[in-house]
Protein backbone atom coordinates (compact mmCIF):
# COMPACT_ATOMS: atom_id res chain seq x y z
CA UNK A 1 0.00 0.00 0.00
CA UNK A 2 1.17 3.48 -0.83
CA UNK A 3 0.20 6.27 1.56
CA UNK A 4 0.02 9.98 0.88
CA UNK A 5 0.08 12.35 3.87
CA UNK A 6 -0.71 16.05 3.74
CA UNK A 7 1.32 18.27 6.04
CA UNK A 8 0.73 21.94 6.66
CA UNK A 9 3.14 24.51 8.04
CA UNK A 10 1.46 26.61 10.72
CA UNK A 11 2.35 28.92 13.59
CA UNK A 12 3.63 26.74 16.43
CA UNK A 13 0.85 25.87 18.85
CA UNK A 14 2.75 27.40 21.77
CA UNK A 15 2.91 30.86 20.22
CA UNK A 16 0.54 33.50 21.50
CA UNK A 17 -0.98 34.74 18.27
CA UNK A 18 -1.34 38.51 17.75
CA UNK A 19 -3.71 40.26 15.40
CA UNK A 20 -2.01 42.82 13.13
CA UNK A 21 -2.81 46.46 13.68
CA UNK A 22 -4.11 46.90 10.13
CA UNK A 23 -6.56 44.01 10.58
CA UNK A 24 -5.27 42.11 7.55
CA UNK A 25 -4.33 38.99 9.48
CA UNK A 26 -2.15 37.83 12.32
CA UNK A 27 1.50 38.61 12.94
CA UNK A 28 3.72 35.99 11.27
CA UNK A 29 7.02 37.87 11.03
CA UNK A 30 9.64 36.30 13.32
CA UNK A 31 7.10 33.85 14.68
CA UNK A 32 8.02 30.22 15.26
CA UNK A 33 6.48 27.94 12.64
CA UNK A 34 6.01 24.19 12.87
CA UNK A 35 4.25 21.22 11.38
CA UNK A 36 0.54 21.28 12.23
CA UNK A 37 0.12 18.90 15.23
CA UNK A 38 -2.63 16.90 13.53
CA UNK A 39 -0.40 16.45 10.45
CA UNK A 40 2.37 15.16 12.67
CA UNK A 41 -0.07 12.54 13.93
CA UNK A 42 -0.91 11.71 10.29
CA UNK A 43 2.76 11.15 9.43
CA UNK A 44 3.28 9.07 12.57
CA UNK A 45 0.36 6.82 11.65
CA UNK A 46 1.71 6.29 8.15
CA UNK A 47 5.18 5.47 9.48
CA UNK A 48 3.73 2.97 11.95
CA UNK A 49 1.85 1.28 9.12
CA UNK A 50 5.09 1.08 7.19
CA UNK A 51 6.93 -0.33 10.19
CA UNK A 52 4.17 -2.92 10.57
CA UNK A 53 4.72 -3.98 6.96
CA UNK A 54 1.35 -2.66 5.82
CA UNK A 55 2.63 0.27 3.81
CA UNK A 56 5.37 0.28 1.18
CA UNK A 57 5.88 3.92 0.46
CA UNK A 58 4.95 7.21 2.12
CA UNK A 59 4.77 10.44 0.18
CA UNK A 60 4.39 13.66 2.17
CA UNK A 61 2.80 16.62 0.42
CA UNK A 62 2.71 20.23 1.50
CA UNK A 63 1.29 23.32 -0.14
CA UNK A 64 2.56 26.81 0.53
CA UNK A 65 5.71 28.92 0.41
CA UNK A 66 9.21 27.57 -0.04
CA UNK A 67 9.69 27.29 3.74
CA UNK A 68 7.19 24.41 3.75
CA UNK A 69 10.18 22.30 2.80
CA UNK A 70 11.02 22.42 6.51
CA UNK A 71 7.83 20.61 7.51
CA UNK A 72 8.37 18.13 4.68
CA UNK A 73 11.87 17.48 6.06
CA UNK A 74 10.26 16.86 9.45
CA UNK A 75 7.95 14.30 7.84
CA UNK A 76 10.95 12.72 6.08
CA UNK A 77 12.88 12.58 9.35
CA UNK A 78 9.92 10.83 10.96
CA UNK A 79 10.06 8.19 8.24
CA UNK A 80 8.28 9.38 5.08
CA UNK A 81 10.14 8.39 1.88
CA UNK A 82 9.57 11.34 -0.42
CA UNK A 83 8.40 14.93 -0.20
CA UNK A 84 6.37 16.96 -2.65
CA UNK A 85 5.84 20.70 -2.34
CA UNK A 86 3.31 22.62 -4.38
CA UNK A 87 4.89 26.00 -4.03
CA UNK A 88 2.80 29.15 -3.83
CA UNK A 89 2.92 32.37 -1.85
CA UNK A 90 -0.83 32.81 -2.11
CA UNK A 91 -2.97 31.95 0.88
CA UNK A 92 -5.10 29.13 -0.45
CA UNK A 93 -8.48 28.05 0.88
CA UNK A 94 -9.28 24.39 1.67
CA UNK A 95 -11.06 23.79 -1.66
CA UNK A 96 -7.96 24.82 -3.61
CA UNK A 97 -5.76 22.76 -1.27
CA UNK A 98 -8.02 19.76 -1.82
CA UNK A 99 -7.79 20.24 -5.59
CA UNK A 100 -4.00 20.33 -5.47
CA UNK A 101 -3.94 17.22 -3.30
CA UNK A 102 -6.24 15.56 -5.82
CA UNK A 103 -3.70 16.49 -8.47
CA UNK A 104 -0.96 14.78 -6.44
CA UNK A 105 -3.14 11.73 -5.90
CA UNK A 106 -3.82 11.33 -9.60
CA UNK A 107 -0.06 11.24 -10.12
CA UNK A 108 0.88 9.10 -7.13
CA UNK A 109 -2.11 6.70 -6.99
CA UNK A 110 -2.01 6.00 -3.25
CA UNK A 111 -4.42 3.58 -1.57
CA UNK A 112 -4.71 5.68 1.55
CA UNK A 113 -4.52 9.41 2.15
CA UNK A 114 -4.06 10.68 5.71
CA UNK A 115 -4.60 14.31 6.66
CA UNK A 116 -4.95 16.13 9.95
CA UNK A 117 -8.53 16.76 10.99
CA UNK A 118 -7.82 20.45 11.36
CA UNK A 119 -5.09 22.98 10.77
CA UNK A 120 -4.73 24.97 13.98
CA UNK A 121 -4.34 28.29 12.16
CA UNK A 122 -7.54 28.57 10.14
CA UNK A 123 -9.36 25.96 12.27
CA UNK A 124 -11.28 24.98 9.13
CA UNK A 125 -11.57 21.21 9.52
CA UNK A 126 -12.53 20.78 5.86
CA UNK A 127 -9.72 19.69 3.57
CA UNK A 128 -9.91 15.91 4.07
CA UNK A 129 -13.67 15.83 3.61
CA UNK A 130 -13.38 17.99 0.47
CA UNK A 131 -10.65 15.81 -0.94
CA UNK A 132 -12.72 12.66 -0.37
CA UNK A 133 -15.63 14.34 -2.20
CA UNK A 134 -13.49 15.33 -5.18
CA UNK A 135 -12.10 11.81 -5.44
CA UNK A 136 -15.45 10.12 -4.80
CA UNK A 137 -13.77 8.13 -2.00
CA UNK A 138 -15.08 7.17 1.43
CA UNK A 139 -13.91 9.28 4.38
CA UNK A 140 -12.99 8.38 7.93
CA UNK A 141 -12.71 11.69 9.76
CA UNK A 142 -11.49 12.39 13.33
CA UNK A 143 -9.87 8.97 13.58
CA UNK A 144 -8.66 7.68 16.94
CA UNK A 145 -7.95 4.16 15.65
CA UNK A 146 -7.11 2.82 12.20
CA UNK A 147 -7.09 -0.86 11.30
CA UNK A 148 -7.32 -2.88 8.13
CA UNK A 149 -9.42 -5.85 7.16
CA UNK A 150 -8.77 -7.09 3.65
CA UNK A 151 -9.60 -4.26 1.31
CA UNK A 152 -11.24 -2.17 4.01
CA UNK A 153 -10.04 0.43 6.44
CA UNK A 154 -11.76 0.12 9.82
CA UNK A 155 -11.81 3.57 11.36
CA UNK A 156 -12.85 4.46 14.89
CA UNK A 157 -13.97 8.08 14.94
CA UNK A 158 -14.25 10.54 17.81
CA UNK A 159 -17.76 11.93 17.60
CA UNK A 160 -19.77 14.16 19.91
CA UNK A 161 -21.56 11.29 21.64
CA UNK A 162 -18.51 9.03 22.03
CA UNK A 163 -16.98 6.78 19.39
CA UNK A 164 -18.21 5.49 16.05
CA UNK A 165 -16.62 2.76 13.94
CA UNK A 166 -16.98 2.70 10.16
CA UNK A 167 -15.67 0.33 7.50
CA UNK A 168 -14.41 2.01 4.33
CA UNK A 169 -13.58 0.42 1.00
CA UNK A 170 -10.07 1.38 -0.07
CA UNK A 171 -8.90 3.71 -1.44
CA UNK A 172 -10.03 6.07 1.29
CA UNK A 173 -9.29 9.36 3.04
CA UNK A 174 -8.65 9.41 6.79
CA UNK A 175 -8.25 12.47 9.01
CA UNK A 176 -6.53 12.22 12.37
CA UNK A 177 -7.75 13.14 15.83
CA UNK A 178 -5.45 13.73 18.79
CA UNK A 179 -5.66 10.27 20.28
CA UNK A 180 -4.74 8.28 17.16
CA UNK A 181 -1.13 8.08 18.32
CA UNK A 182 1.66 9.98 20.00
CA UNK A 183 4.21 11.20 17.45
CA UNK A 184 7.83 10.19 17.98
CA UNK A 185 10.65 12.56 18.76
CA UNK A 186 13.05 13.20 15.91
CA UNK A 187 16.44 11.57 16.25
CA UNK A 188 19.51 13.35 14.95
CA UNK A 189 20.62 10.56 12.56
CA UNK A 190 17.14 10.55 11.05
CA UNK A 191 17.21 14.31 10.62
CA UNK A 192 20.52 13.89 8.77
CA UNK A 193 19.12 11.09 6.62
CA UNK A 194 16.05 13.16 5.79
CA UNK A 195 18.25 15.79 4.15
CA UNK A 196 19.15 13.28 1.47
CA UNK A 197 15.64 12.05 0.76
CA UNK A 198 14.01 13.26 -2.47
CA UNK A 199 11.89 16.40 -2.24
CA UNK A 200 10.22 17.69 -5.42
CA UNK A 201 9.09 21.28 -5.73
CA UNK A 202 6.35 22.07 -8.23
CA UNK A 203 4.95 25.59 -8.72
CA UNK A 204 1.25 25.35 -7.77
CA UNK A 205 0.39 27.66 -10.65
CA UNK A 206 1.88 25.20 -13.16
CA UNK A 207 -0.64 22.47 -12.30
CA UNK A 208 -3.57 24.11 -14.06
CA UNK A 209 -5.62 23.58 -10.90
CA UNK A 210 -8.19 26.29 -10.12
CA UNK A 211 -6.75 28.13 -7.12
CA UNK A 212 -8.93 31.23 -6.92
CA UNK A 213 -11.20 31.60 -3.92
CA UNK A 214 -14.72 32.92 -3.71
CA UNK A 215 -14.15 33.57 -0.03
CA UNK A 216 -12.61 36.89 0.87
CA UNK A 217 -11.28 37.81 4.30
CA UNK A 218 -12.52 41.36 4.88
CA UNK A 219 -10.76 41.84 8.20
CA UNK A 220 -9.22 40.04 11.12
CA UNK A 221 -9.89 41.52 14.53
CA UNK A 222 -9.09 40.86 18.12
CA UNK A 223 -11.81 39.09 20.11
CA UNK A 224 -13.26 40.86 23.14
CA UNK A 225 -10.82 40.38 25.98
CA UNK A 226 -11.92 38.86 29.24
CA UNK A 227 -10.55 40.51 32.29
CA UNK A 228 -9.63 38.40 35.25
CA UNK A 229 -11.91 38.72 38.25
CA UNK A 230 -11.30 38.30 41.94
CA UNK A 231 -9.77 35.63 44.13
CA UNK A 232 -11.98 34.20 46.83
CA UNK A 233 -10.56 32.92 50.08
CA UNK A 234 -12.79 29.95 50.70
CA UNK A 235 -15.36 27.62 49.21
CA UNK A 236 -18.02 29.32 51.33
CA UNK A 237 -17.14 32.74 49.93
CA UNK A 238 -17.23 31.28 46.41
CA UNK A 239 -20.71 29.85 46.87
CA UNK A 240 -21.95 33.11 48.43
CA UNK A 241 -20.62 35.12 45.49
CA UNK A 242 -22.11 32.74 42.94
CA UNK A 243 -25.48 32.96 44.68
CA UNK A 244 -25.68 36.62 45.60
CA UNK A 245 -23.31 38.51 43.31
CA UNK A 246 -23.18 36.58 40.02
CA UNK A 247 -26.63 35.12 40.67
CA UNK A 248 -25.85 31.97 38.70
CA UNK A 249 -26.86 29.64 41.52
CA UNK A 250 -30.18 29.53 43.26
Amino acid at each position, binding site marked *: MKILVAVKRVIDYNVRVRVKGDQTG*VETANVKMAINPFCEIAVEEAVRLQEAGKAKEIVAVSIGPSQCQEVLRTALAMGADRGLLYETDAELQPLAIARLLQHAIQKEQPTLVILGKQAIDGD*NNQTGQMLAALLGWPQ*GTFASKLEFDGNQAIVTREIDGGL*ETVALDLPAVVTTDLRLNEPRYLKLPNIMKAKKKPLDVVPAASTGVELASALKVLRVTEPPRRSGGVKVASVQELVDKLRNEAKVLS
Partner: protein
Amino acid sequence: MSVLVVAEHDNQELKSATRNTITAATQLGGEVVVLVAGQGCGAVAQAAAGVAGVARVVQVEAEHYAHPLAEELTPLVIAHAGNATHVLAPATTFGKNLLPRVAAQLGVMQISDIVRVESPDTFVRPIYAGNALATVQSSDRVKVITVRSTGFDAAATGAAPAPIEQGAAQPAFGKSRFVRHQLTKSERPELTSASIVVSGGRGMGSADNFRLIDDVADKLGAAVGASRAAVDAGFAPNDYQVGQTGKIVAPNLYIAVGISGAIQHLAGMKDSKVIVAINKDEEAPIFEVADYGLVADLFQALPELSTALSR
Protein backbone atom coordinates in the same frame (compact mmCIF):
# COMPACT_ATOMS: atom_id res chain seq x y z
CA MET B 1 -34.04 32.96 -1.21
CA SER B 2 -34.23 29.79 0.78
CA VAL B 3 -32.04 28.26 3.44
CA LEU B 4 -31.64 24.52 3.84
CA VAL B 5 -30.78 23.37 7.36
CA VAL B 6 -29.56 19.80 7.73
CA ALA B 7 -30.96 18.45 10.99
CA GLU B 8 -28.77 16.48 13.36
CA HIS B 9 -30.54 13.68 15.18
CA ASP B 10 -30.37 10.03 16.19
CA ASN B 11 -33.76 9.07 14.66
CA GLN B 12 -35.36 9.78 18.02
CA GLU B 13 -34.35 13.24 19.10
CA LEU B 14 -33.57 16.43 17.26
CA LYS B 15 -30.13 17.48 18.58
CA SER B 16 -30.35 20.88 20.20
CA ALA B 17 -27.52 22.37 18.12
CA THR B 18 -29.91 22.15 15.17
CA ARG B 19 -32.08 24.78 16.85
CA ASN B 20 -29.15 27.18 17.20
CA THR B 21 -28.48 26.60 13.51
CA ILE B 22 -32.10 27.42 12.70
CA THR B 23 -31.69 30.74 14.52
CA ALA B 24 -28.69 31.54 12.32
CA ALA B 25 -30.76 30.49 9.29
CA THR B 26 -33.55 32.90 10.16
CA GLN B 27 -31.02 35.75 10.20
CA LEU B 28 -30.20 35.16 6.54
CA GLY B 29 -33.67 36.05 5.29
CA GLY B 30 -35.72 33.72 3.16
CA GLU B 31 -37.63 30.53 3.81
CA VAL B 32 -36.04 28.05 6.24
CA VAL B 33 -36.39 24.42 5.17
CA VAL B 34 -35.18 21.63 7.45
CA LEU B 35 -33.98 18.33 5.97
CA VAL B 36 -34.47 15.34 8.26
CA ALA B 37 -32.86 12.25 6.76
CA GLY B 38 -32.91 9.02 8.69
CA GLN B 39 -34.76 5.80 9.24
CA GLY B 40 -37.81 5.85 11.44
CA CYS B 41 -37.23 9.52 12.14
CA GLY B 42 -40.86 10.69 12.18
CA ALA B 43 -40.62 12.05 15.71
CA VAL B 44 -37.59 14.12 14.69
CA ALA B 45 -39.42 15.58 11.69
CA GLN B 46 -42.28 16.54 13.99
CA ALA B 47 -39.93 18.14 16.48
CA ALA B 48 -38.27 20.10 13.67
CA ALA B 49 -41.67 21.23 12.37
CA GLY B 50 -42.40 22.75 15.76
CA VAL B 51 -39.25 24.89 15.90
CA ALA B 52 -39.91 28.63 15.54
CA GLY B 53 -38.86 30.02 12.16
CA VAL B 54 -39.15 26.77 10.20
CA ALA B 55 -41.29 27.07 7.06
CA ARG B 56 -41.15 23.46 5.91
CA VAL B 57 -39.64 20.11 6.86
CA VAL B 58 -38.54 17.54 4.31
CA GLN B 59 -38.32 14.04 5.74
CA VAL B 60 -36.42 11.36 3.83
CA GLU B 61 -36.30 7.78 5.01
CA ALA B 62 -33.99 5.04 3.79
CA GLU B 63 -31.90 2.29 5.28
CA HIS B 64 -28.71 4.00 4.18
CA TYR B 65 -29.65 7.09 6.20
CA ALA B 66 -30.07 5.12 9.45
CA HIS B 67 -26.65 6.42 10.52
CA PRO B 68 -25.45 9.82 9.41
CA LEU B 69 -22.68 8.82 6.99
CA ALA B 70 -21.40 11.86 5.09
CA GLU B 71 -20.94 9.77 1.94
CA GLU B 72 -24.65 8.87 1.91
CA LEU B 73 -26.03 12.23 3.02
CA THR B 74 -24.01 14.36 0.60
CA PRO B 75 -25.93 13.50 -2.61
CA LEU B 76 -29.18 13.84 -0.70
CA VAL B 77 -28.34 17.29 0.65
CA ILE B 78 -27.29 18.39 -2.83
CA ALA B 79 -30.52 17.05 -4.35
CA HIS B 80 -32.52 19.07 -1.83
CA ALA B 81 -30.35 22.16 -1.97
CA GLY B 82 -32.05 22.89 -5.32
CA ASN B 83 -32.07 26.64 -5.55
CA ALA B 84 -31.19 27.25 -1.91
CA THR B 85 -28.93 30.23 -1.34
CA HIS B 86 -27.51 28.72 1.85
CA VAL B 87 -26.97 25.24 3.25
CA LEU B 88 -26.40 25.12 7.02
CA ALA B 89 -25.59 22.48 9.61
CA PRO B 90 -24.40 22.67 13.20
CA ALA B 91 -20.62 22.82 13.69
CA THR B 92 -20.69 19.52 15.57
CA THR B 93 -18.81 16.40 14.52
CA PHE B 94 -21.91 15.63 12.43
CA GLY B 95 -21.89 18.91 10.50
CA LYS B 96 -18.10 19.11 10.27
CA ASN B 97 -17.97 15.67 8.72
CA LEU B 98 -20.74 16.34 6.23
CA LEU B 99 -20.75 19.90 4.94
CA PRO B 100 -17.22 20.18 3.50
CA ARG B 101 -18.06 17.14 1.40
CA VAL B 102 -21.24 18.84 0.22
CA ALA B 103 -19.39 22.07 -0.55
CA ALA B 104 -16.62 20.38 -2.54
CA GLN B 105 -19.16 18.41 -4.53
CA LEU B 106 -20.89 21.71 -5.33
CA GLY B 107 -17.52 23.29 -6.16
CA VAL B 108 -17.89 25.99 -3.51
CA MET B 109 -16.07 26.96 -0.33
CA GLN B 110 -17.33 25.97 3.07
CA ILE B 111 -17.47 28.50 5.86
CA SER B 112 -16.73 26.82 9.19
CA ASP B 113 -17.97 27.66 12.65
CA ILE B 114 -19.65 31.00 12.12
CA VAL B 115 -20.53 32.90 15.30
CA ARG B 116 -22.24 35.88 13.67
CA VAL B 117 -24.19 36.74 10.54
CA GLU B 118 -23.30 40.23 9.31
CA SER B 119 -25.32 39.97 6.12
CA PRO B 120 -26.44 37.11 3.86
CA ASP B 121 -22.92 36.89 2.40
CA THR B 122 -20.74 38.07 5.28
CA PHE B 123 -19.97 36.11 8.42
CA VAL B 124 -17.70 36.20 11.46
CA ARG B 125 -15.73 33.12 12.50
CA PRO B 126 -13.00 32.52 15.06
CA ILE B 127 -9.56 31.40 13.87
CA TYR B 128 -6.33 30.54 15.73
CA ALA B 129 -8.18 28.95 18.66
CA GLY B 130 -10.37 32.00 19.01
CA ASN B 131 -7.41 34.37 19.34
CA ALA B 132 -8.65 36.22 16.26
CA LEU B 133 -11.97 36.77 14.58
CA ALA B 134 -12.15 36.75 10.78
CA THR B 135 -14.93 38.54 8.93
CA VAL B 136 -15.34 36.71 5.63
CA GLN B 137 -17.42 37.41 2.55
CA SER B 138 -18.47 34.74 0.09
CA SER B 139 -19.38 35.26 -3.55
CA ASP B 140 -20.33 31.62 -4.09
CA ARG B 141 -23.82 31.10 -5.51
CA VAL B 142 -24.62 28.85 -2.58
CA LYS B 143 -23.09 29.40 0.81
CA VAL B 144 -22.33 26.24 2.71
CA ILE B 145 -21.92 27.01 6.40
CA THR B 146 -21.45 25.28 9.73
CA VAL B 147 -22.81 27.16 12.73
CA ARG B 148 -21.19 27.30 16.16
CA SER B 149 -24.03 26.94 18.61
CA THR B 150 -22.53 29.28 21.23
CA GLY B 151 -22.95 32.17 18.77
CA PHE B 152 -26.72 31.80 18.41
CA ASP B 153 -29.56 31.13 20.86
CA ALA B 154 -31.56 27.97 20.32
CA ALA B 155 -34.78 28.69 18.39
CA ALA B 156 -37.90 28.16 20.49
CA THR B 157 -39.89 24.95 20.33
CA GLY B 158 -43.64 24.55 20.43
CA ALA B 159 -44.39 26.82 17.44
CA ALA B 160 -47.40 26.09 15.21
CA PRO B 161 -46.22 23.05 13.26
CA ALA B 162 -44.80 23.63 9.79
CA PRO B 163 -45.82 21.19 7.04
CA ILE B 164 -43.79 17.98 6.69
CA GLU B 165 -43.18 16.61 3.19
CA GLN B 166 -41.76 13.21 2.34
CA GLY B 167 -38.72 13.49 0.07
CA ALA B 168 -37.13 10.90 -2.20
CA ALA B 169 -33.94 9.09 -1.21
CA GLN B 170 -30.85 9.02 -3.40
CA PRO B 171 -29.16 5.78 -4.44
CA ALA B 172 -26.77 4.38 -1.83
CA PHE B 173 -23.05 5.17 -2.15
CA GLY B 174 -22.24 1.88 -0.48
CA LYS B 175 -18.46 2.19 -0.11
CA SER B 176 -18.63 3.04 3.58
CA ARG B 177 -20.52 1.19 6.24
CA PHE B 178 -21.48 1.92 9.80
CA VAL B 179 -20.07 -0.77 12.08
CA ARG B 180 -20.86 0.27 15.65
CA HIS B 181 -21.28 2.98 18.21
CA GLN B 182 -19.83 3.23 21.67
CA LEU B 183 -21.78 6.12 23.06
CA THR B 184 -21.05 7.65 26.43
CA LYS B 185 -24.05 7.08 28.65
CA SER B 186 -25.00 9.90 30.92
CA GLU B 187 -28.06 11.10 32.75
CA ARG B 188 -26.62 14.58 32.80
CA PRO B 189 -27.50 17.43 30.43
CA GLU B 190 -25.64 17.64 27.13
CA LEU B 191 -22.30 19.40 27.45
CA THR B 192 -22.84 21.93 24.67
CA SER B 193 -26.29 23.05 25.82
CA ALA B 194 -25.99 22.75 29.62
CA SER B 195 -26.34 25.95 31.63
CA ILE B 196 -23.67 24.81 34.10
CA VAL B 197 -20.52 22.83 33.24
CA VAL B 198 -17.99 21.44 35.71
CA SER B 199 -14.73 20.37 34.06
CA GLY B 200 -11.75 18.49 35.43
CA GLY B 201 -8.17 18.52 34.22
CA ARG B 202 -4.95 16.63 34.76
CA GLY B 203 -5.00 17.81 38.36
CA MET B 204 -7.79 15.30 39.05
CA GLY B 205 -5.12 12.60 39.04
CA SER B 206 -7.29 9.62 38.10
CA ALA B 207 -10.57 8.49 36.59
CA ASP B 208 -11.76 7.52 40.06
CA ASN B 209 -11.21 11.02 41.35
CA PHE B 210 -13.54 12.35 38.67
CA ARG B 211 -16.27 11.22 41.07
CA LEU B 212 -15.53 14.40 43.01
CA ILE B 213 -16.50 16.35 39.87
CA ASP B 214 -19.59 14.16 39.39
CA ASP B 215 -20.74 14.91 42.95
CA VAL B 216 -20.62 18.64 42.39
CA ALA B 217 -22.21 18.32 38.95
CA ASP B 218 -25.06 16.26 40.42
CA LYS B 219 -25.78 18.95 42.99
CA LEU B 220 -25.87 21.60 40.26
CA GLY B 221 -27.64 19.64 37.54
CA ALA B 222 -24.52 20.36 35.51
CA ALA B 223 -22.78 18.66 32.61
CA VAL B 224 -19.25 17.34 33.06
CA GLY B 225 -16.34 18.33 30.83
CA ALA B 226 -12.60 17.73 30.76
CA SER B 227 -9.33 19.09 29.43
CA ARG B 228 -7.44 17.25 26.73
CA ALA B 229 -4.85 16.13 29.26
CA ALA B 230 -7.58 14.52 31.38
CA VAL B 231 -9.03 12.73 28.36
CA ASP B 232 -5.63 11.59 27.09
CA ALA B 233 -4.84 10.20 30.52
CA GLY B 234 -8.07 8.21 30.43
CA PHE B 235 -9.72 10.12 33.30
CA ALA B 236 -12.74 11.01 31.13
CA PRO B 237 -14.24 9.90 27.78
CA ASN B 238 -13.14 11.66 24.58
CA ASP B 239 -16.45 13.41 24.07
CA TYR B 240 -15.94 15.34 27.33
CA GLN B 241 -13.07 17.33 25.83
CA VAL B 242 -13.65 21.08 25.85
CA GLY B 243 -11.44 23.23 23.65
CA GLN B 244 -10.15 24.28 20.26
CA THR B 245 -10.34 20.76 18.94
CA GLY B 246 -13.06 19.44 21.22
CA LYS B 247 -16.39 20.94 22.17
CA ILE B 248 -17.14 24.64 22.41
CA VAL B 249 -19.30 25.57 25.37
CA ALA B 250 -20.66 28.84 26.73
CA PRO B 251 -22.76 28.05 29.81
CA ASN B 252 -23.93 30.50 32.44
CA LEU B 253 -21.40 28.99 34.81
CA TYR B 254 -18.19 27.10 33.96
CA ILE B 255 -16.18 25.62 36.80
CA ALA B 256 -12.63 24.56 35.83
CA VAL B 257 -10.98 22.29 38.36
CA GLY B 258 -7.31 21.29 38.15
CA ILE B 259 -7.05 22.83 34.68
CA SER B 260 -4.11 25.13 33.92
CA GLY B 261 -5.81 27.18 31.19
CA ALA B 262 -3.87 26.49 27.99
CA ILE B 263 -5.09 28.58 25.03
CA GLN B 264 -6.46 25.43 23.41
CA HIS B 265 -8.68 24.86 26.44
CA LEU B 266 -9.68 28.51 26.79
CA ALA B 267 -10.79 28.45 23.14
CA GLY B 268 -13.58 26.11 24.16
CA MET B 269 -14.97 27.93 27.20
CA LYS B 270 -13.93 31.57 27.38
CA ASP B 271 -17.32 32.81 26.20
CA SER B 272 -18.98 31.35 29.31
CA LYS B 273 -20.91 33.94 31.29
CA VAL B 274 -19.25 33.28 34.64
CA ILE B 275 -16.01 31.33 35.00
CA VAL B 276 -14.77 29.79 38.24
CA ALA B 277 -11.29 28.30 38.55
CA ILE B 278 -10.09 26.02 41.31
CA ASN B 279 -6.37 25.41 41.11
CA LYS B 280 -3.59 25.04 43.66
CA ASP B 281 -1.18 27.08 41.56
CA GLU B 282 -2.00 30.75 41.94
CA GLU B 283 0.01 31.51 38.77
CA ALA B 284 -2.12 29.23 36.59
CA PRO B 285 -3.25 31.12 33.45
CA ILE B 286 -6.84 29.98 34.00
CA PHE B 287 -7.08 32.69 36.69
CA GLU B 288 -6.60 35.34 33.99
CA VAL B 289 -10.04 34.55 32.59
CA ALA B 290 -11.79 33.47 35.80
CA ASP B 291 -14.37 35.74 37.40
CA TYR B 292 -13.86 33.89 40.68
CA GLY B 293 -10.62 32.13 41.43
CA LEU B 294 -10.03 29.83 44.36
CA VAL B 295 -6.43 28.88 45.06
CA ALA B 296 -6.85 25.55 46.80
CA ASP B 297 -6.21 21.85 46.68
CA LEU B 298 -9.08 20.38 44.72
CA PHE B 299 -9.21 17.28 46.90
CA GLN B 300 -10.23 19.52 49.75
CA ALA B 301 -12.21 22.12 47.81
CA LEU B 302 -14.48 19.78 45.82
CA PRO B 303 -15.93 17.85 48.80
CA GLU B 304 -16.39 21.19 50.59
CA LEU B 305 -18.16 22.62 47.55
CA SER B 306 -20.41 19.60 47.33
CA THR B 307 -21.38 20.03 50.98
CA ALA B 308 -21.89 23.79 50.66
CA LEU B 309 -24.19 23.25 47.69
CA SER B 310 -26.38 20.87 49.68
CA ARG B 311 -27.17 23.60 52.14
